[in-house]
């Protein structure tokens, strides 16, 4: 029962944070602001709105992870409030999973609400039929943010907020290039090829969560894609959180 409790508290703390409210408002403004760019879009206004809207969800969500997620555990260690929790019968893995669930929940709220705003804007332009594609795009963006949050929790449990933000950002960048790494591996010789292939499979394969090009043309993705992406996100998060737990268990707070 401790995991939902910690998750609820983390969620409440995150949603009360001004950063989150600010980011949601800014995201809404950006999505509405895309309407001003229509004249430059040479007839591709719908595409511009969808693309920028989904990118906004993804990037603003990343901003929340960097600003809130990377200090999630480190802040409690710094303030020593973690001692109050760990003296109770709360296991360290449960604490980390609760933290991850709470922040992920807050991010899902952000992704969901911005996704609905985006759909609303498109519906006002007469493109309401794009709803399924846009919501699928927002769902995949939410999964991406869940994976990034798991990484942020891992680094937050091990390092200072600044360093964990840098590590998380680094993993985000490498994750976005994972399929390029795989392409690179195909053309690389011998040992470099195998090394690149291993690295490409180890880093978070974030392009899996990108269906912006499809959504921009109003095409929904396949159920297979959604199922595989969900499964991958859950397994990857599980692995990262297990690593975080292993490291956190070995950490001495005396």
């Amino acid at each position, binding site marked *: 029962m401790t995991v939902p409790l910690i998750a609820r508290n983390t969620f409440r703390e995150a949603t009360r944070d001004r950063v989150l409210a600010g980011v949601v408002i800014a995201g809404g403004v950006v999505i509405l602001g895309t309407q001003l760019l229509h004249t*430059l*879009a*040479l007839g*591709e206004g719908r*595409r*511009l709105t969808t*693309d920028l809207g989904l*990118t906004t969800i993804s990037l603003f969500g990343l901003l929340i992870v960097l600003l809130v997620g990377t200090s999630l555990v480190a802040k409690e260690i710094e303030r020593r409030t973690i001692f109050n929790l760990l003296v109770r019968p709360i*296991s*360290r*893995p449960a604490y980390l999973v609760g933290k991850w669930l709470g922040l992920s929940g807050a991010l899902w709220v952000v992704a969901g609400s911005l996704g609905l705003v985006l759909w609303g804007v498109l519906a006002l332009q007469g493109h309401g039929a794009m709803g399924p594609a846009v919501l699928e795009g927002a769902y995949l963006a939410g999964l991406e943010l869940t994976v990034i949050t798991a990484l942020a929790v891992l680094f937050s449990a091990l390092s200072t907020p600044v360093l964990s933000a840098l590590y998380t950002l680094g993993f985000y960048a490498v994750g976005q290039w*994972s*399929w*390029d790494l*795989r*392409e690179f591996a195909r053309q690389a010789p011998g040992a470099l090829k195998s090394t690149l292939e291993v690295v*490409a*499979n*180890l880093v978070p*394969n974030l*392009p*899996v969560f*990108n*269906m*912006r*090009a*499809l959504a*921009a043309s109003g095409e929904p993705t396949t159920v*297979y*894609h959604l199922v*595989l*992406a969900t*499964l*991958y996100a859950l*397994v*990857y998060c*599980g*692995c*990262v959180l*297990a*690593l975080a*737990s*292993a490291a956190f*268990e*070995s950490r001495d707070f005396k």
Partner: protein
Amino acid sequence: MSRSGVPPWLARALAAWAVALVLGTCAYGLAATLARDLPRPHPLEELSYYPSGRRMGMVTLGHAETFADLAWMRGVQYYGEHRRTDMRFTRLYHVFDILTSLSPRFVPAYVFGGFALAQEGGNFERAEALMLKGIEENPTSGLLAFELGFLYYVKPGGRDLNRAGEYFEQAARLPDAPPSARRFAAYVRQNAGDFAVARALWQEVARHSENRYLREMAEREIRKIERALTTGRVELARKRLSTPSVSIQQTP
């Protein structure tokens, strides 16, 4: 301390490592499956509505070159993907225009974009515009002048010998031009040795290009010219010279 003598925290840490290993192996396997089974996203299409590279330069916050590099990688990817599939390169000019505006001294981008547009994109006007933009931005580049001469020499639908000669000569006066520039200028000015010039140009590509695709293309073109000459079907060769299908040069 537990009965087995292992401290509880260590037992929990080892259990966590074991879970991480199992899930990590699953994630590793899934990553390979995902990359194989799911369609790749097309980030390049997301670039297509940007009005121009100059405006994009403003949003790169001083990192225009880095963005140009990324755009270059995407451009090459786009080219490769469409070359393998539908041979349609509708966004190619736009991408190369963006990246050369972000990085005006990116000479290989003009060359690659120009030849891809002219020979495979079937859009010589855009190819010429891109190369001339390159010359304007890099007036002292002998390599670019040489490549523009080459582009005019193999212009689909009919060679432009005057302009080819003009740019080969310009290249010959510049320091970084290939050593053969002067020879080609002379050949073209004499308007003689059509096949010799074409074959020699392709041989340059086959010998010096670092791009495997380009070397293969050049070898294919050379074989075609030689086959036409040996079988006596010179008209066929002449027609091919006027409308070559593939020729992208990247002279080091």
